[in-house]
């Protein structure tokens, strides 16, 4: 592959990604959809023979360089996601958020797993399909809840604190899809991995950053922090074929330090300025529209989409309902409990980045074999799009009563204030 065409492709991918992001954001939808759409357009120029893959090596397996840059994009995405995480929020996660998150992850996972096995997929592939449905993307929910003025409500706060654990579970579960060997062996590996990266890293990272500070070289701390991230990623890639686990853990342990947070701007510049758009465009370019000629691809997309929506509402909603929001048994069958739990469930429908990351890990780790990859890519892009489109109207419907009550109470307090002022004027006049 000539370097000229690789450089040209990187340039085109970055420009198109940012334009696509901007267009889609205008419709108040996650910009990542725009980047995926642009990738889909570029990829299909190749699939439909308009441009030769030699001149636009954006599709998978046409250029090792682009494939690897996209992989780096995933690593940076997860590193940034973890670095932006508020660890203290995880500690504060209440019973309702914890139980609803766990059920919200495992119900779609199990439903997806069994549904795909019923459709004839092998167990490992079906499990990987289930994992794709696990992680919520809280960003869209936050935006809609903010617009509705309910983000600081009990449901809003629980949804926010649940999001950290939700991401963590969604990312961790993919290990079981791509990891090889016996369950016991894998379990030991996972324990040792989290012991090394989590426990030892947690205590040693302060000394590591102090050591980096003492080097007194240009961007020395950034270099050493990225070095640590890649070491963790290498370990995770070698043990589980999932480098993201390493970068996520590196981000999480650095997130506790102010020095780590201060590096976010630099990491964001590399990530969102270069590698992450390449990942999204590359992923979009993997979708060959010809796949929709196949009936099985459409069936898979329909099944995963239904489970993605229903599984989350049922799992997270039921999880919240059985805790009765910490108000005791008397509240269990209260209509308010049903309503709040439904709101919690609907808020967890959107999926974007982590689903794509899990998809790529599953494909690269061969949990989803190359022959089925196009179908899963199509299905994932469809359930992502549907999930982000249905969430805003559903949330508005679920919070309708709360919003009306808020408007009414505001109006009545305004009337009260006017009456008080009138009374004061009367008193002054008399």
């Amino acid at each position, binding site marked *: 592959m000539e370097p000229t065409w690789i450089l040209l492709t990187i340039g085109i991918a970055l420009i198109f990604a940012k334009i696509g992001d901007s267009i889609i*954001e205008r419709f*108040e939808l*996650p*910009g*990542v959809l725009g980047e995926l759409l642009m990738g889909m357009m570029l990829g299909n120029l190749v699939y439909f023979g308009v441009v030769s893959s030699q001149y636009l090596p954006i599709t998978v397996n046409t250029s090792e360089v682009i494939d690897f840059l996209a992989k780096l994009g995933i690593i940076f*995405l*997860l590193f*940034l*996601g973890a*670095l*932006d995480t*508020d660890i*203290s929020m995880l500690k504060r996660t209440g019973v309702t958020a914890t139980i609803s998150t766990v059920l919200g992850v495992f119900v779609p996972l199990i439903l997806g797993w069994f549904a795909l096995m019923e459709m004839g997929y092998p167990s490992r592939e079906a499990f990987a399909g289930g994992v794709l449905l696990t992680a919520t*993307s*809280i*960003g*869209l929910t*936050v*935006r809609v809840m*903010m*617009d509705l*003025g309910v*983000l*600081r409500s009990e449901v809003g706060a629980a949804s926010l604190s649940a999001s950290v654990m939700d*991401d963590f579970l969604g990312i961790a579960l993919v290990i079981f899809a791509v990891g090889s060997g016996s369950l016991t062996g894998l379990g030991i590996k996972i324990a040792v991995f989290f012991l090394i990266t989590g426990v030892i890293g947690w205590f040693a990272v302060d000394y590591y950053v102090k050591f980096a*500070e003492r080097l007194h070289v240009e961007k020395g*701390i950034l270099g050493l922090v990225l070095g640590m991230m890649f070491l963790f990623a290498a370990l995770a890639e070698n043990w589980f074929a999932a480098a993201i686990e390493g970068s996520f853990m590196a981000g999480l342990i650095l997130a*506790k*330090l*102010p*020095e*780590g*947070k*201060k590096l*976010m701007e630099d990491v*964001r510049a590399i*990530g*969102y300025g270069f590698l992450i758009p390449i990942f999204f465009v590359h992923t979009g370019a993997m979708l060959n529209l010809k796949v929709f000629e196949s009936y099985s691809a459409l069936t898979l997309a329909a099944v995963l989409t239904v489970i993605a929506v229903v599984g989350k509402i049922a799992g997270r909603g039921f999880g919240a309902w059985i805790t009765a929001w910490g108000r005791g048994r008397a509240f269990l069958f209260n209509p308010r409990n049903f309503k709040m739990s439904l709101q919690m469930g609907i808020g967890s429908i959107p999926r*974007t*980045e*982590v689903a794509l990351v899990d998809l790529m890990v599953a494909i690269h780790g061969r949990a989803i074999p190359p022959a089925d990859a196009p179908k899963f890519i199509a299905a994932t892009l469809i359930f992502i799009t549907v999930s982000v489109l249905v969430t805003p109207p559903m949330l508005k419907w679920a919070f309708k009563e709360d919003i009306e009550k808020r408007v009414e109470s505001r109006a009545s307090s305004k009337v009260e204030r006017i009456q008080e002022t009138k009374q004061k004027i009367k008193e002054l006049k008399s």
Partner: protein
Amino acid sequence: MENVEKALQHFHALKLKQIMPATSSIPVVEADSAVINVLKILRTRHHVWVVKNRKNMELCGVIRYLDTMDILLPPEVHKFRLGMTSAVMKSLLGGAQKAEEIMEKNVLTIEEDATVLEALTKMKRYKTQVLAIVKGDTLVSEISLRILINELLRLLRVGGTSWSQHGSSSQSELH
């Protein structure tokens, strides 16, 4: 020139505890203070330390002048993407009401026994112009570029008698 060199050498070796302002003169709010009170302080100061309560002065975070952009902007201006959501939560229109909801939790700190040179190096390294001086988790003072400039000018004996006031906390430093 020789004077400047001498002054700078002495300046770099100074301990922060020799020049830091009194705790009572630094801008502090409690974690549950209203955002409006924070904004009132930020009209004249360029950062506010957030403590759990004024009795124990346990440091929780900092709100800097530049953070007001996130506070005042509508939430939809921010991108809702993985790794970019923390700034969104600070928006007043998004429902932020208390200081703890808009503060930056991870605060760069330094100890009072550190030297001016160490403080300057840390400021340069992390592109910040103010550091919290702490004893364990307790906020005892702050060190800012403004305080350091004042101290250097005092050593150089320029600027008149007003420069002899140690540790006058900044009202106009840039962040």
